[in-house]
């Protein structure tokens, strides 16, 4: 099961990276998110899985696709100039980072130490209790942040206020 979902996730992400067409890239991002939701399920966290689907695939990517359709820029534009140094430089950096990451994971002793996972699944009740008892300030700040972002988005896009 883990392998299947991990493969779905990684294939979705790679497709998103490779596909020239913005809409298909967005859809492969959805595939990747569904894989991540599956991983969350395997981690015994169905609440996070449901939220992943509801918020990420159901709202954010839909919004991105909506904007793509609205702007009628369905394909990536031709590059203005090659900018070879930047492209190859970032490719090398990224691959170095990737290799380093794999090396770290492989040789890390903390990660490799066998642990027994917590087994009882997450429920909304436990999550809510913790959120509103211990993290109330964080919750309020997140609410403020969302409000500020909403106002910012409206003021950026609306032509005449």
């Amino acid at each position: 099961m883990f392998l299947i979902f991990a493969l779905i996730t990684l294939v979705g992400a790679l497709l998103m990276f490779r596909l020239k067409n913005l809409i298909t890239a967005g859809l492969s991002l959805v595939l990747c998110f569904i894989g991540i939701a599956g991983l969350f399920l395997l981690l015994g966290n169905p609440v996070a899985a449901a939220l992943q689907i509801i918020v990420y695939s159901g709202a954010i990517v839909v919004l991105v696709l909506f904007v793509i359709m609205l702007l009628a820029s369905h394909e990536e534009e031709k590059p203005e100039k090659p900018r070879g140094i930047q492209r190859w430089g970032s490719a090398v950096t990224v691959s170095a980072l990737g290799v380093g990451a794999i090396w770290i994971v492989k040789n890390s002793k903390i990660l490799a130490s066998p642990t027994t996972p917590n087994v009882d699944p997450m429920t909304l009740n436990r999550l809510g209790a913790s959120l509103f008892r211990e993290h109330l300030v964080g919750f309020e700040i997140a609410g403020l942040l969302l409000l500020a972002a909403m106002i910012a988005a409206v003021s950026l896009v609306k032509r005449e206020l």
Partner: protein
Amino acid sequence: MDQLSALLHMSPATLWMAFKVVLVFAGPLTLAALMTWVERRGSAMIQDRIGPNRAALFGKWRLMGLPQLAADGIKAFMKEDLVPPHAHKFLFWLTPILAFLPAALGFAVIPFGQSFQSGGQTYHLSLLDPGNGMGMLYPLAIGATAVYGVLVAAWSSNNKWAILGGMRASAQMVSYELGMSLAVISIFMTTGGYDPHQIIAAQHGMWNVGPQFVGFLVFFTCMFAETNRLPFDFAEGESEIVAGYFTEFGSMKFALMYLSEFIHLVTASALIVTLYFGGWRVPFVANPGVLLSVAAFLGKTLFFCWVFVWVRWTLPRFRYDQLMKMGWKVMLPLSLANFLFHAFLMFRRG
């Protein structure tokens, strides 16, 4: 049950699961097929017409137009499967699946009858047993992915009407999900849990529709938007944009998308029944038993399916700005007010 499972060399749990999978898949599908009939005949009756009644089994039995379903299915199979030029072939082929899957999956957590015990084991009449941690979040999540069927259909068919329909649908579904989720959350709050079994158990004395009437109205209205039914069927909008997102779809692709709309309808009715009308509960009967409870659930669901059809043939389509205004300025504040009111009540009660 035990004897039967011994006969088939399966554990009772496996047998029961297989049985439930078949039931949960075939039940809504059958109901949806029936609903297409109800929609056509019912709309005809509402408009003082007769409706389709010419198709006959073996040229003899008309059965009030029911063979029309078979005739339509056969017709859809026989038609040419057309892909428009410049369409995105892969996505165009994928679309009916994307439309059908969320519709067919949505029913999985809804309990359609009272749990019963047999041979020392409890059998639950819902595909996912209670305590799975997903609860009512599951239909919400599945409903959120339903918009991809519309979006992908719209974009892949390379048609301007389709893309207009798809854009309308995406904005509409995202907007109405807010009001709907808030209405559902106030039910979670008053129930103290979010498992459908728990929600039904909490409606023992009184159905949720009594104390949460405003929430019910909001949820019901949002369900019209989520299922793309008539007062809000902007994705289709046949008088303005031909047939909206499935303009280019023909033959069995069209049939699947059409059918998935009706499965959405059935699932939406089942959700309404579960959340607000006590699920399988029968009034004044504490322990209805399996058969009666399933019948009650079926009856309530069919009633709400009929209400969907009824409303569709009563109301004209809204204008798009009216829809958006309604979603953000009426539905969201109303369900927020409902939520705050119940929070206040619970706070007062301690």
